[in-house]
């Protein structure tokens, strides 16, 4: 059969992603008084090996959006190329219009869902935040196209460990400082309990006037001398 006239689904030597290679762990995002904050660490895991330690997982998209990714790093980087094309093409109209976070989130959702329909997913969970026309926007989408918006979102382990903290402590009018403190509290919990988390992270901010700012990498202060860390089985007798 001529491969050019055949559906890619019928060609048997085509490669599809069935599992990820290098992955990034949780991303968390929150709305705050002036915009959106997103945090992610810089680890790139090859299975359980910590293969890369300086992976940028937060990127600005156009003028009004900020993207954070967990999951397969190469798929994320390919997605960034799609988005570059999209924003460039949008710019070339030169009509004064530009994509806002809602449009970018919708585009990402379409790409993710489309790829799952082809049984060739992009292996990521994405967090997209932004501000346009005074409207804050924070949404997420995963590898099979499930998407939603909320005041705070998290991917992966963050869903288990950070979301409960955010539900407790998140407020509509958080200041920038309090927002960063809240994210750092979540990242610290993840650092303690998620084995693929590393102590090198970035926090990105987006506001209406200020645009996108991504912090240089930094680390959190940790304290490992808790009794439960030193002797985790003390008091746990077990049943046999």
């Amino acid at each position: 059969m001529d491969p050019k006239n055949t559906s890619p689904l019928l060609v048997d030597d085509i490669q599809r992603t069935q599992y990820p290679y290098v992955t990034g762990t949780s991303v968390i995002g929150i709305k705050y008084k002036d915009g959106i904050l997103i945090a992610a660490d810089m680890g790139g895991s090859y299975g359980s090996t910590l293969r890369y330690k300086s992976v940028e997982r937060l990127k600005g998209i156009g003028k009004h959006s900020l993207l954070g990714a967990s999951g397969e790093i190469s798929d994320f980087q390919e997605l960034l190329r799609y988005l570059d094309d999209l924003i460039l093409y949008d710019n070339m109209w030169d009509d004064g219009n530009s994509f806002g976070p809602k449009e970018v989130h919708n585009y990402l959702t379409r790409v993710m869902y489309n790829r799952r329909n082809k049984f060739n997913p992009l292996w990521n969970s994405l967090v997209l935040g932004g501000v346009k026309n005074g409207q804050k926007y924070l949404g997420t989408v995963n590898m099979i196209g499930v998407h939603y918006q909320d005041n705070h979102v998290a991917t992966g382990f963050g869903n288990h460990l950070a979301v409960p903290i955010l539900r407790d402590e998140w407020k509509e009018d958080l200041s920038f400082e309090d927002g960063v403190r809240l994210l750092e509290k979540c990242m610290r919990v993840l650092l303690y309990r998620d084995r693929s988390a590393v102590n090198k992270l970035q926090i990105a901010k987006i506001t209406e006037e200020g645009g996108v700012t991504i912090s240089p990498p930094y680390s959190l202060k940790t304290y490992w001398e808790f009794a439960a860390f030193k002797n985790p089985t003390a008091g746990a007798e077990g049943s046999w």
Partner: protein
Amino acid sequence: MTKEHANWSPYDFNGGTCVAVAGADYCVIAADTRMSTGYNILTRDYSKICKLAEKSVLASSGFQADVRALQKHLDARHLIYQHQHNKQMSCPAMAQLLSNTLYYKRFFPYYAFNVLGGLDNEGKGCVFTYDAVGSYEKVGYSSQGSGAKLIMPFLDNQLKSPSPLLIPAQDAVTPLSESEAIDLVRTAFASATERDIYTGDKLEILVLNKEGLRREYMELRLD
């Protein structure tokens, strides 16, 4: 080694319960706003109800990405219909369109469980209930989704619809007044949320009658 790597499925189940009750001159369509995956609650405020035309409202649960794709598809088809016929699609027509749309993907289905409620051409309430591949039936009331197994027997008990086997066919609309129907739906959800972990957070109720469309909310359990 048994497990080498993570695997994936093109489907997920995001939970949720939908109910619709038809009366002589109204239709009540309701669904909770919780979206879950496994034991995680992803968000507490995601609407499962979609107004497709002036007199048809769709409530859907199942796999959220498929549900959203289905809603967008039906919205687009309705827009084309309006351009071609210069009118709103009727609820029974929308019911047939939904069935065909679901069956079109018979061998890679939309994992969506739908209840379509609306008013027919005489202004009488009507409810259509579906499975994921497009089988559908016109009924007087119905429930779909994760809490359906708790709600459906309750509605059967309270509403005692005439058997579909009766000849001549008996009208399926419920004898309740509009406010009685809303109360019944509220009670049904208050009970379902006690036992079904995928139902909760908030109940969204749409009431369709000759005055138009009205929307109300009720808080449900958050746990």
